[in-house]
């Protein structure tokens, strides 16, 4: 079905919804194509193509929401979805106290696309498999490596959005990524090392050029060597010490302890029953000391190359940069048109996204970026007499208010007199969010800053998985509890 035909269905759906009494309606179609490859040693484990098209209609009737989605793409089906959404909204209105209000947003007529140099879906499959197997072959040269895996993922998504306010937006977003993972096993011990990041490597907005720049095969030997070395490395000690985190781990620290707690729907209790709420409230804006003066964090769909880089969110709001934490003070939340009303904002900052056509949009992190400070990673290490450098996220857990957290990394090294020393296995650290960010005394500079991606952020019911970006550089934290007492 062509984009024009889908646009016609969306217009029919909006006409049907407003004709049935909706005060507001938007309709969104999503056509997605995906490719997922996974190679384990010489064996192709996953070679999947995906193709999905559908549409969803969101309406406000009597101040309450209704949403209906279908993969059936006839005019009758689109109109049926709109009428179902209106019926649902009527039911919602029987259990609401105050009508939903939306902050205004210009009715954009626009197109936006991810800049792509080399179409990742057009690259020959043989070339992709060769790139992956070159890396797994190199990792598999070590006897300790039980599993040498390489993965590649591509998603191309075309979205059309129409609203009863007159918005008409078409976006094409391309996410591409790859990674390698070596798992070493001996005597019941399992250790893993990944490159360039864990959990399917690194994904970003762009084309196949992102994968070519990774040099997976060139990094395979070191990845395998480190996994094997971890088998005999001493365990990370339980102590209170200075910790330096690499950019990948800072990414997840930002994600869990800043990104989620500053989602305004969580702050307002809308996610209370599932993902949880937040330890900060609306009353904390412009007052609460979230971290040290070294901590500056933004919500920014306009920063390039991230999994949260886009022109418009899924309720037609133009993406724009918003400060969340400025010199350690909480100054903003991620908002939607509905929740922005609750903090007296004139506009939403454009963070509503839905997974596919079948889901109701939620506040989702775009690119939540820790702004760079000064100096290199070596400069951060140089000011540590005795501490631990941890790299590459391995595990995470945080409470329902996003306060008490524990993270694990794949690998660590002692820091002695400003230099890296012995390798340590099973590094973990725990903390309380504002205390931890308050202990941040240095963030490395622009030369160390890069955009990372989290492809598996879960939220909402039904559960939605979102791809989220985080620009970070390594950072240093004092007086951190490491290890885990069992």
């Amino acid at each position, binding site marked *: 079905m062509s984009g024009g035909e889908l646009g016609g269905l969306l217009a029919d759906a909006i006409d049907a919804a407003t004709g049935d009494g909706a005060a507001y309606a938007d309709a969104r179609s999503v056509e997605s194509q995906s490719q997922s490859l996974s190679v384990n040693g010489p064996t192709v484990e996953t070679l999947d193509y995906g193709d999905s098209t559908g549409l969803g209609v969101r309406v406000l009737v009597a101040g*309450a929401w209704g949403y209906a989605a*279908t*993969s059936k793409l006839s005019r009758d089906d689109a109109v049926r979805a709109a009428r179902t959404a209106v019926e649902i909204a009527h039911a919602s209105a029987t259990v609401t106290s105050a009508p939903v209000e939306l902050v205004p947003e210009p009715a954009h007529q626009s197109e936006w696309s991810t800049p792509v140099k080399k179409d990742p879906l057009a690259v020959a499959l043989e070339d992709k498999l060769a790139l992956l*197997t070159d890396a797994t072959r190199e990792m598999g040269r070590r006897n300790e490596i039980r599993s040498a895996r390489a993965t590649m993922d591509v998603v191309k998504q075309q979205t059309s959005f129409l609203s009863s306010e007159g918005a008409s937006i078409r976006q094409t977003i391309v996410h591409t990524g790859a990674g390698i993972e070596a798992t070493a096993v001996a005597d019941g011990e*399992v250790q893993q090392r990944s490159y360039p990041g864990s959990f399917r490597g690194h994904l970003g907005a762009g084309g196949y050029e992102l994968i070519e720049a990774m040099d997976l095969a060139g990094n395979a030997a070191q990845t395998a060597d480190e996994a094997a070395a971890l088998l005999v490395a001493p365990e990370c000690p339980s102590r209170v010490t200075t910790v330096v985190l690499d950019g990948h781990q800072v990414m997840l620290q930002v994600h869990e302890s800043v990104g989620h707690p500053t989602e305004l729907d969580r702050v307002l209790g809308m996610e209370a029953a*599932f993902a*949880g709420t937040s330890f900060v409230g609306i009353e904390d804006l412009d007052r609460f000391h979230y971290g040290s003066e070294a901590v500056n964090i933004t919500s920014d769909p306009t920063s390039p190359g991230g999994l949260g880089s886009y022109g418009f969110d899924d309720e037609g709001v133009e993406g724009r940069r918003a400060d969340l934490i400025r010199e350690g003070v909480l100054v903003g939340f991620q908002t939607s048109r509905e929740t922005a009303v609750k903090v007296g904002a004139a506009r939403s900052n454009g963070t509503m996204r839905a997974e596919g056509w079948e889901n109701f949009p939620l506040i989702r992190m775009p690119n939540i970026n820790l702004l760079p400070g000064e100096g290199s990673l070596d400069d951060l290490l140089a000011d540590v007499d005795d501490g631990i450098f941890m790299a590459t996220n391995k595990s995470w857990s945080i*409470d329902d208010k996003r306060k008490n957290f*524990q993270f694990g990394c794949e690998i660590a090294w002692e820091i002695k007199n400003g230099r890296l020393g012995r390798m340590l296995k099973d590094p973990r650290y725990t903390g309380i969010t504002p205390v931890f960010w308050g202990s941040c005394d240095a963030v490395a500079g622009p030369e160390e800053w890069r955009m990372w991606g989290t492809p598996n952020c879960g939220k909402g019911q039904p559960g939605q998985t979102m791809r989220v970006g985080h620009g970070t550089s390594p950072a240093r934290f004092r007086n951190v509890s490491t290890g885990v007492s069992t």
Partner: protein
Amino acid sequence: MSSSELPVTRAEVRRAAEAVLDHPGADAVEVVIGAASSGVTRYAGSEIIQNIARDELQAFVRVVVGDRAASAATNQLDAGHMTTAAGAALEAARASLPDPDFPGLPSPAEVGEATPVGRWDDDTAAASPAQRAEAVKEIVAATAAGAAAGIYETGAHAWAVISSEGIDCFDAFTRCVMTCLADVGDATGWGDDSSHALSEVDAAGAARRAIAKAEASRGATDAEPGSYDVVLEPVAAGTLLDYLSYAGFGAKQMLEGESFFAERRGQGVADPSVTIVDDVRHPRSVGIGFDFEGLPRQRVAVIDGGVATGPVSDLRSARKLSEPPTGHSSGSAEFGAYAANIIMEPGHQDLEELIAGVEEGFLVTRFHYVNILDRPTTLLTGMTRDGTFRISGGEVAGPVRNFRFAQSVLEALANVRGVGRDLVALAPEFGSFGSTAAPALRVDGFHFASTTSH
């Protein structure tokens, strides 16, 4: 089973599959189709905040060329889209690498014919938005002393596996799930209920449990981290079992050395009172009678009387083990087999009796944000949530602030000192073909590593 409420009928999937089963150039073809028609009413602050209905479908076409296979998915069942998917899968399979361990597609003569479980309820499949809103009204009324948040979900789900080798499976189930978090300002409480049939879900009763738990949690005090005897309510126990299954019940994880089965198969790993089975036909399970290769889903005692007697397998891992497959393909060759319908066999004590057995310890309602720290030792971490209480002298002695735990599940199961008699099904993830049901457990020496401020 009313075909008018099925999200996709057997005839529709058969027709879609027949368009590609003889795809030119393919040695064999398999089609897996999943479809759902569902509604989820979400509420928070005691009012409905999101409310959706959706019809969805996915068809996965796997094409085999010699010892190579690839798959392509589409969400349109017409012959054109199915043929395009088969063509893409064929091209990918041809470009792929030889796989000497590829087990091929099974035939019914080789693996047997699966029969449907048929856990279906017409009223649940036909539930309307107005019915879901009425249920939320009941929940809100039952929690009027606080604010309520949660979901009320109804849905109909169907799965099919059809292949050129003669596999022809179809099964459908319905599901009604409600959850309720009651918030009284300085404390929260939890209640949930689920079944394949809406009429068996007591939404108001679960809401009353949630508000009672919240009221009882007011004025929580600090407690010192450390190792304590605990009573885990069924939802908390079931969460640990879910992660145990994910961490180690699959044969692929065993073969790759990452599961506890790699070192301890056939050995005692838990107290003899602990028996954990995967059994889709258990009355508290909801799911389908076959796996994603079309094999009959067998009942497997994964831990039997404390002994590690699993794992579960798919065709590929079973062949490597030289054992019959158990019918637990997850549909992902990358992940391998998955035990999706976990049942822990109940014991003989009620919750009060389990609590009475603890001199000094804690009662845990449920856990939050659990994650695996070490797969072979099944070491997990996570938080307690929505009702954690001190036990003193065999009685509940007041609420405490939440703990972070760091605990090996197998060690906890080795320290089980009592198993509850009531088997409770966990509220499942949306659309899941899996289910978990667990009793309450009394566990000695459960490790809490730190606390939080609420």
